[in-house]
Structures are given as C-alpha cells and as structure tokens.
C-alpha cells in the first residue's frame, strides 16, 4: 500500500522529464518553438541588391554569396536578442570560421552604425534594408534570424532566434563542413 504515496512523485518526475527533454532539445537547437516550415530551403536565395551599410554608394546582393559557404544574419540595433548572439558572432569572425553577411533590417543607419561601433562588427558587410523588402522576400518573421547559403547561392538552413555556441556546434558546424565538401 505504501507505493501509492509515490504516485505524486512519479507523476511529477514524468513531467519534469518531459520538460528536461524539451529544454535539452531547445538548447541543442533541435527544437525551436518558433520554427515555422520554410519553403526556401534548398531553393536559390531570393535575389536582391541593397546599399552597403557603411558605404551607401556600394551595393551588396546575391552575387556576394556565390563560390563560398556563408552566413546571412538578419539583425537590427533595436533588437534585444541580437545583443545576445552578437559576442558569439564576434568570436566566429575572430576564428575566421565562415564569412558572415549582415542584413540590417528596418533600422536607422546612424543607430546601426553606432551599434557596430560600440559592440564590434563581425560582418564582412551589412546590407541596409530600411524598408524591410528583402526581409519579406527571404521570409523573415523576426529578428534575429540566420541563414546558411551554399556555394551555389542556395539557402540550406534558416534559424530563427539567437545563435549560441551549443546551437552552432550542433546545427551549423556539421552542415557547413558538409557543404564545403560538396562540389560546387
């Protein structure tokens, strides 16, 4: 009869197990509650041509992605979570792991430049998307989002939300290694 007193504990542990499972998956990037099915995966990246954030007379566009595996990171100075992933992108840039292009999304140029001045600039270059048109083409739901683009200029992965070291190791690094080994 004593076993029945263990029932509440058992139920709770089952629940805790479920939460642990979910959190663990979130940490590794396997489960992302805000992930929505993206139709862009394995499709050529939507073409665009935008002014460079730092040099408005130059443009950045789809051709920049060709011939290399690169990251395309959507960010804005008004975005709180961008501050969270920013140090990790700085680290990636320092390690020279992969070229990171930025899409400065619905931002003021002055704010964006100050943000990079203060926190550092991990981007090879940032495109300045004041009206958010390119973001719409790319299916950007929120900021930050990070895309992996392969040598042929196809989108291979979309990750919404801030990128952390754990998520990087689990989801990005293997994919990038695989893409680099592909013929392109």
């Amino acid at each position, binding site marked *: 009869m004593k076993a029945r*007193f263990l029932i509440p*504990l058992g139920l709770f542990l089952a629940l*805790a197990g479920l939460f642990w*499972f979910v*959190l663990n998956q*979130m940490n590794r990037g396997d489960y992302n*509650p805000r992930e929505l099915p993206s139709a862009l995966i394995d499709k050529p990246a939507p073409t665009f041509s935008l002014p460079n954030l730092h040099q408005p007379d130059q443009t950045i566009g789809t051709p920049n992605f060709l011939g290399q595996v690169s990251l395309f990171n959507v960010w804005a100075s008004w975005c709180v979570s961008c501050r*969270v992933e920013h140090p990790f992108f700085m680290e990636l840039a320092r390690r020279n792991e992969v070229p990171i292009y930025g899409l400065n999304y619905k931002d003021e140029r002055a704010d964006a430049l100050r943000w990079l001045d203060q926190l550092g600039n991990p981007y090879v270059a940032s495109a300045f998307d004041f009206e958010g048109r390119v973001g719409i083409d790319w299916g950007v739901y929120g900021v930050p989002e990070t895309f992996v683009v392969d040598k042929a200029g196809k989108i291979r992965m979309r990750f919404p939300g*801030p990128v952390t070291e754990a998520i990087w190791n689990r989801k990005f690094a293997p994919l990038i290694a695989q893409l680099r080994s592909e013929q392109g």
Partner: protein
Amino acid sequence: MVPELGHFALILALCVAIVQATVPLAGTVWRVPGWIALARPAASAQMLFLVLAFGALVWSFIANDFSVAYVAQNSNSALPLEYRISAVWGGHEGSLLLWGLILGGWTFAVAMFSRRLPDDMVARVIAVMGLISIGFLLFMLLTSNPFDRLVPPAPDGRDLNPLLQDFGLIVHPPMLYMGYVGFSVAFAFAIAALIEGRLDATWARWSRPWTIVAWVFMTFGIALGSWWAYYELGWGGWWFWDPVENASFMPWLIGTALIHSLAVSEKRNTFKNWTVLLAIFAFSLSLLGTFLVRSGVLTSVHAFASDPARGIFILAFLLLVIGGSLALFAWRAPAVKSTGHFQLVARETAMLSGNVLLVVAMGAVLLGTLYPLILDAFALGKISVGPPYFNAVFVPLMAPLLLILGVGPHMRWKQDDAATLLRRYRFVLLVSVVAGILLPLVAYGTVTPGVGLGVALACWVVGGSVVDLGRRVRTSRGLRGVPRSYWGMTTAHAGLAVVVVGVTLTSAYSTESDVRMAPGESLEMAGYTFHFDSVDQVAGPNYDASFGHFRITAADGSQVARLNPEKRIYRVQTMPMTEAGIDGGLFRDLFIAMGEPLGDGAWAVRIYHKPFIAWLWLGAILMGCGGLLAASDRRYRLAVKSAQAATVGPVATAES
C-alpha cells in the same frame, strides 16, 4: 552607486536566506534554542535587504539611470513618475525581484504573526521559506540581475509600452504574485509538519488563514486581469484560456480545493495526507507556472530563448523543491493515521467529491496547456488547443460541483440522513429548476438546456445557503450567533453562483456584430438603436485620436447613453490603440469599438450587447470578500490558545 548597493543588498539577502534556511532547521534537529530563535531575526533581516534592493531599483527608475540595462529597456525620461515606478515590474528581472520581495514579505508576516505558535514549528516554516528564497535569489543573481550596467549607458530608455500605462496592468501582476507566493506559506507549513512527522489538526488550523488570504489575492488578481482584458482590449472577451491565464488558474483551482480540505483536516482530523498533498501542489503549480511562462518552452508567443540556461535553472529548482517535497511526502505520509471516520452521506464525502472535481479540472487545464508542447517537441505537428476544448471539459466538471455545493456544506459531519436532506431541500430544488427554465424565458424569450442548467444551479447554490442560514438562525442565537467564517463561506459560495449566472447569460445571450457604419447611420440590436453621429479628429497630450460620437436610444426613443469610442495613434511609437466606449450596468453592458476606417467616411464598428457581464467581477469580488470574512474569524485569533486542546483528537464540532 545606488544600483551597486541594490546588487549588494541582493547578495546580502541571499546570505541571510542561507542562514535562515539552515540554522533554525539544524536547531530543531539538535535542540539548540539559540539556533531556533534565529529564525525570526533572519526573516526580518532578509526582508530589510530585499526592501533595500527593491528600493534601489525604484530609485534607479525615478532617477532615470539609463546606465542600468533594465531601466534603459523599460523606462524613458518622458514617462510620468507613477509609471516609472510601476515600470519596475514591467520586465523580467524586475518582476522577479518583486516576486522575491513579496516572498520576503510573507516570511516576515509569518514571523510577526506567529508569536504564539511553538518556536520550533515557526523555525521550520521560516526555514522552508528561506530555502525557496535561496532559489529565487540565486536565479536572479546568476541569470537575471536587474542591476546589470549597460556600457556605454543609453542616452534614453526604450520606454514602457503605452498599453502598460494603465491602472489595471499596474495592479494585476503584484496581486497575482501575492497569491502565487502566498501559497508558499501553506506549503512551508505542510513541509514543516512533514519534517516534524506530526500532521494533526493544529497545523491545518495554523495554515488555514494564510492559505485563505493567499487565495483571496489570487482571486482578485485573476478577476482584475479578466476585467482589464474586457475593458481595454476592445474585443469584449474576458477569458481566453491561454497559457499564462492557465498558469494562474491552475494554482487557483488547487488553492480552492486546499482551503476546503484544510477545513476538514482541522475539524475532523481526516484527509490529512490529501491536504498536505494539495498544499504541495498549490505552490508547485505556482512554480510550474513560473517555469512554463519564463523558460520559453511553452509557446512561440511567450518564447524567450535568449538564455536557455534560465530554463535549466528553473527546472533544477523545481526538481529540488517539488521533487524533494513529494519524496518527503512519500516517506512520511504512510505513517499518518486519519481518525475521523465518516459515512457515505456526510459533509466529508461532499468535500472530498468537490476536491476531486477541482483537482480533475486542474488536470484537464494542465493537459490542454501542455498538449501542444508535447506534440511539438516530439515533432508530431504544430497544433493549438482552443477555448472549445476547455469549455467542453469544464462545464461537465463544474455542473456536479455546483450540485454538491448546494447541499454539501450544510450536511452534518460524519453522517447525515439522505431522506431528511431531501425533505429539507426539495423545495429549493423545485424552485431552482422552475427558475432555471422560467427566468431566462421571461427575460429573453428563449432558453437552452445549458442556460437552464446554469441558472438552476446558481439558484440551487444560493437557495441551499438561504435554507441553511434560516435553520441556523432558528437553532442558534439569532443572526449574531452565526460565526464570521460561516458568513464568509456563504458569501463566497453566493459569489460563485453570481459568477455562474454571469458566465451563463453573457455566453448565451450576448449579441455581437462587426458592421460597416458611416456617420448618420444607425443599427438596431437587442432593443437598442445605436446611432453613429460623427467622428472628430482630436489631439490628446501624446496621441491623435479619431473620436467617435455615438448615441444609444431605447425602443421608445429615449436616450440611454452617449458613447465616445476612440481610435488613438500614439505619436512617439506610432502605436494605434482602440479605446472602447462602454455603457456599463448591472444587467447589461453596451459596448462600442471602432475598428478601421473603410473609406468614404465609413468605419468598421464593433457593437456588443453583453447581458450580465458585470456579474463575473461582482461574483469574484464576493468570493474574495467571503475569503476575507472567513480569514478574519475570531476563531483564528483564539486558535493558538486552544491549539493544545485541538491536538488531542477529533473535536466534536458537528454543528459548526
């Protein structure tokens, strides 16, 4: 400097909490009076440091110190003073600090108002609350420090959402937290009793008033949230069954079961294990709610993935607190013997059935809340569980509960006679059924089984109370002889009946329509004519508004009300807000909200006729007042003196 002092005060509070959680507890084990006596001063010191920390944060907000990251994110130099203060709990870190402060406050209150309780009992209770405090302070200091500096400082803050610059939302979170955290007292009493291994009527009596007060706060908090949603959102809804609401509703359901179960444990010395379990559950669900809505696991809407470490931390904390206490329960509970035996027809049976229904209802809410998470996590599909699920489950559970409520509280303890009860209540039963069919029919011309059932059950609950009150007045010394706790119970149950009437009638007879209206046009609805006279452009202090002029006339042409719904655009954030025009009344609300302009001067307009909606909040207020009446019963003030007597065994209180 001040933020650093606040940070330092938090660290000191943590140190005190560690002392508070360990030394008095060790004192009770090794019988060291000096260590036991440390509990109360520790609780006071803890309170002092938390007040200092909270004060430091308030000061940072008042002084517009935008070098503090949290202030920069949630305030602005142009924000009026009162909103700068309420912005303190407008964000994650600050609301956690408020949580901690309230916990400190409850602990302090226990230390103050338990002068006549045995010292080692108080020491255990305060130590358990100290343990909880350690968890929250660590969480704050390690993952969510509100005093983190921003380098370089922001020139100005990001401002508080205009929506939060509203009385309802200033008061709603602190009220809810008072309830959530208040259940920690019942929890601490239960754990203290389990540690001591002495579960008797005494601890039930000690924790009862605390639990009731926490429940009252929670009741008011939930009602306030619902009321705010109704008047501010321009949509006419008052309950959405979304995860955050559910997170507060689940502990409320268990808390309701707990205050009833505590009564049985106190008076009849039975259900003791069940009561302890409920005390653990009520607080566990408060913590669980905190976990679900702050860890980001629940829905994308409330996701907060910037720091998954927070989720892991809270989960570990949950495991420790809930897992630990349930393990303690599994260890200690088998030794507890209930002495109060009872028959099938008895008040105990009614209480038990009501309890089971409440717990099952909580389970159903929990299932509906977690089901999308489970499916999503196992990649079985993205789903949402809508209000129809909750309604479909809730109504069949609440109907029998109300049926029991009409007669259960008036049964004798131990054993009652079904035939006598039937004879006493058959008149009420008959009247209720007739009223359930006739009242809606007379008032609205139609009646559905659902409406008839709702009204009949409400009449049944109130009628049963009236019959019993009459009997008591005749048998005891008139109205004065009726104890305050009895008035409290009757008021609270009547409040529930009022809520039921409100929910039933407003759900069944509300008339709502979204229409296209141009100035000069009118619409007839529910016997009223709504005239759209004109729209002005008005400039407010920090917004521009389209200001509607509506007239409402009754069937005989007389004017009922003039309403001015607005569509505001806040200049700084270019944020549109709808201000609904509401003509409130005891029996119906008339509600007008302007949607969007459709061109040619026409507007999309929402017009609602909502019968009996005010009864929802009226009923909740009655319930809360009933709780306050019960908690202030003189029995509790005298309780301690007779505590010794109560431990001896079941006290003959058949008539109370």
